[in-house]
């Protein structure tokens, strides 16, 4: 009972927040509602017994990435989005169709997949130890590579935002 209640509440919250992200005209509001979406998503993760991931999710996404977004929005002084022109309406309509189609596809796929059986297996808890164990044994190489990736990202960001030297 509990699980279902929490699931529906927080998934509804997530969807609402996501919709707001996409539809609002104010960029700051968009970022902030994404933060809200992140939080409810983290709770969903907890529901799925992925404790470590939930924590990291909040730390990294809400705490770092979205804050960065906010900084840039403030820095650039991005104002409200202008009212839509004619092309915008077109995009909205076509976009709507595309999205609907996509939703249909998801429905079809899920229906097809569930026919092949989705038996529940014993629940594994995603504690730090468990995940960590995996990370440092089986998935060690990707782990190291991601650190290299981070390094590259940093260098890239620095290089890109340098003022051009005359």
């Amino acid at each position, binding site marked *: 009972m509990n699980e279902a209640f929490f699931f529906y509440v927080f998934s509804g919250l997530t969807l609402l927040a996501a919709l707001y992200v*996409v539809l609002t005209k104010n960029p700051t509001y968009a970022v902030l509602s994404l933060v809200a979406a992140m939080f409810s998503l983290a709770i969903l993760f907890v529901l799925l017994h992925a404790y470590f991931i939930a924590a990291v999710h909040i730390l990294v996404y809400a705490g770092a990435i979205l804050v960065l977004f906010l900084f840039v929005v403030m820095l650039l002084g991005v104002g409200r989005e202008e009212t839509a022109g004619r092309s915008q309406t077109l995009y909205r309509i076509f976009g709507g169709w595309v999205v609907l189609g996509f939703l249909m596809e998801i429905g079809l796929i899920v229906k097809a997949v569930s026919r092949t059986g989705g038996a529940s297996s014993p629940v594994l808890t995603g504690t730090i130890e468990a995940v960590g164990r995996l990370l440092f044994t089986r998935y060690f190489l990707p782990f190291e590579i991601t650190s290299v990736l981070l390094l590259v990202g940093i260098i890239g960001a620095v290089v890109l935002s340098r003022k051009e030297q005359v």
Partner: protein
Amino acid sequence: MIGLNHYLILSGCLFAIGMYGIITRRNALLMLLSVELLFNAANLSFVAYARYRGDLAGQVFVFFTMVVAACEVAIGLAVAILLYRAQETLNTDEIHSLKW
């Protein structure tokens, strides 16, 4: 009761919303934001699978995607700043120097 399918459908909806955002948004920054939504939808489905298939690899994968997302945002924002510096606007309608 709450099965894998529920989470998958939720993930699908989130993804759809993110797609709509990409198509509709004119501001480059907000487009990037919608991309984040896409990422999260994918993460959700990964974790759901990890839970219902009993394999923690899903969660490990989410870990990695988060790292990648972080890098991507960093670079993306740097590019956006450069764009703003060059064109004085972030409105994608007015950025079309790559037109034929």
